[in-house]
């Protein structure tokens, strides 16, 4: 059955190609090419982030459009133009035909997404002046507050506010790091305020690595880090980093975190690293939490991550294609398209459904309906990777697997129902 299914998938591909469906991804790539020079943002890295997010969104949208249109159109044509009379008596079970049409649509959506992602990567590299590096992050295992007297205090709630006399700080402990690895960076961010109620743009801090023998190794700011630099006309002895106000939503690893270089030898032989941040200016307050300091590990250049992002985002078109095939097995093309596009929009708007339910001012029946939607529909927005790409965060195979596992139950149910419907279809 596999050979026959692959033959049907190849047929879908050829049908779409000769139907000039390649114009869709080409249009998407052209749109990015047109956008690339004109995108502007408040900070220099903003345009790059916008382009990365826009190309990811374009790839995802193109994939969804193709997943809704292609399989529905192809299967309804098979059935309504009676091609099925030629094809279905062959020794390929109808489930093989259905899976072939589905696989063909997913392959098309994936290829279109990869094409647009490649165009997006080119645009990003052009605006960034080179191919950006992506990073994976490792969170700390332990987080403590350190008083001005050097006493370590546990922070059970995971966040603390440094205020009052200077010299207090926080300490993060990392484990499981590779002592032989090169290129590790330490990323730090925090919320900054004024102790006196005025406006403060940044707070000077000192960030050091503590060796197991008690040695203190001051870390230096990466010259390429736009965040954390000393402001003009400011000086603070001992400061190696100036934290500007950033909340957790500002997540660009390249632009929203101070990037400090971790010299060799700061990671112990057993893979441990202890980092201490000390507030230096009593006029400032710094709010720090467990996740305000991470170790960034180089994860390669952006295009590979953009490609993996497409594979992760392909989970959404896969579900939509399965839904389109199910409806196309029992209804006409317009009905199948309507169903597929409705699922696409609803699946991307579950957060809005959740918010509506949270407000609690919907009627009982509507609330019940929205509750059923939340339980029954796949959360297609969860497969999006645009934010990660824009934040220079690595998109690993775990993200790909997580996205597909998230939609797997819906995929299995939709394909099984499609098989049942197609096998009952009278020709």
């Amino acid at each position, binding site marked *: 059955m596999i*050979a*026959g299914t*692959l*033959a*049907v998938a190849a*047929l879908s591909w*050829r*049908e779409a190609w*000769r*139907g000039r469906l390649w114009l869709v991804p080409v249009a998407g790539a052209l749109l990015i090419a047109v956008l690339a020079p004109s995108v502007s943002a408040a900070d220099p890295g903003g345009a790059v982030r916008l382009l990365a997010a826009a190309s990811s969104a374009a790839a995802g949208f193109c994939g969804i459009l193709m997943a809704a249109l292609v399989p529905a159109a192809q299967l309804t044509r098979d059935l309504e*133009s*009676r*091609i*099925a*009379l*030629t*094809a*279905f*008596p*062959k*020794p*390929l*079970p109808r489930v093989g035909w259905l899976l072939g049409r589905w696989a063909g649509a997913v392959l098309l959506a994936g290829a279109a997404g990869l094409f647009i992602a490649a165009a997006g990567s080119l645009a990003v590299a052009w605006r960034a002046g080179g191919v950006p590096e992506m990073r994976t992050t490792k969170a700390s295992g332990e987080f403590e507050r350190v008083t001005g007297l050097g006493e370590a205090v546990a922070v059970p709630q995971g966040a603390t506010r440094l205020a009052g006399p200077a010299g207090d700080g926080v300490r993060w402990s990392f484990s499981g790091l590779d002592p032989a690895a090169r290129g590790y960076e330490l990323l730090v961010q925090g919320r900054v305020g004024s102790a006196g109620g005025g406006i403060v743009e940044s707070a000077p801090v000192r960030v050091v690595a503590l060796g197991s023998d008690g040695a203190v190794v001051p870390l230096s700011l990466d010259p390429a880090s736009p965040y954390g630099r000393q402001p003009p006309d400011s000086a603070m002895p001992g400061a190696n980093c100036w934290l500007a106000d950033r909340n957790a939503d500002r997540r660009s690893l390249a632009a929203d975190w101070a990037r400090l270089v971790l010299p060799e030898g700061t990671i112990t032989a057993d893979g441990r690293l202890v980092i201490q941040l000390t507030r230096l200016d009593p006029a400032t307050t710094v709010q720090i939490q467990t996740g305000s300091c991470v170790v960034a590990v180089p994860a390669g250049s952006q295009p590979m991550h953009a490609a993996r992002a497409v594979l992760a985002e392909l989970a959404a078109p896969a579900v939509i294609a399965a839904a389109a095939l199910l409806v196309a097995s029992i209804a006409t093309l317009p009905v199948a398209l309507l169903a597929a596009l409705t699922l696409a929009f609803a699946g991307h708007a579950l957060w809005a459904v959740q918010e509506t339910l949270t407000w609690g001012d919907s009627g009982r029946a509507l609330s019940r309906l929205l509750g059923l939607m939340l339980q029954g529909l796949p959360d297609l927005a969860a497969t999006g990777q645009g934010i990660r790409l824009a934040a220079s965060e690595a998109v690993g195979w775990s993200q790909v697997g997580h996205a597909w596992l998230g939609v797997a139950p819906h995929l299995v149910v939709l394909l099984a129902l499609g098989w049942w419907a197609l096998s009952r279809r*009278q*020709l």
Partner: protein
Amino acid sequence: MSDEVVRTTGLAKVYADFWGRPRVSALEGLDLTIAKGEVFGLLGPNGSGKTTTIKLLLGLIRPSRGDAFVLGRDPGDLAVRARVGYLPEETYLWKFLTADETMTFIGRLFGLPAAEIAKRSDRLLNQVGLGHARGRRLGEYSKGMARRLGLAQALINDPELVILDEPTSGLDPVGSAEVKDLIIALKQSGKTVLLSSHLLADVEDVCDRIAILHRGRLAEQGRVHDLLADDQRLMVELQSPDAATIAAVKAAAGASLIGVAPPRERLEQRFRRIVAKNNGDGAR
């Protein structure tokens, strides 16, 4: 029993609507047997149940009552489908594919190796007269060319049972004659052919046995020779008779004589002869 390629007993089909309510009874109590190596004709007016019978034998639809066996097994069995070739009433194929690509795709559905597909495709496309047009897309094909390709795809798996629904539909007389020659060749190579056609002359020319359906019921079944035999009349053929011989025959026949006339050539034979002659002239 092992010689039975097709057997139906009490086969019936009632088409239902979306909700499962009976809508129309297309076939009622069909008992049919087709032996190995036979060319069997299925005749009947429109709506008589011919296509429904074929769909049941192909496993495309399930019977409402009764049983159908093809090559000794359920028609929906994939192993059975691998041994059956089918040409639908109209040629439903993919217009964006070339003839070569169509044959390759169909061959892959049968799980044939690529080399075998190429070999069979080459032979069959030449056999149906499409060797010169194999690289053209089907959208550019005439109805007759598409029909020939439909026939070729039905034979890609070297089937034991070939089901042909109106195989000469859309073909010119030469094409029709070639299809009939092909059916006879299939019979000679031991294949079983189930032929459904409105063109009674075609059926008469090639079929060993026929069944006539009317309003979903079997109206008549038997050998063509037996069904068409007329015991009440006798035909005498003479080669270049002179007037005396004719007079003697008339005298011998007496009052039972119906008529004396030279034999007439069938229009199809004459057409084929003229086309063949002109093709020969053109070649010279």
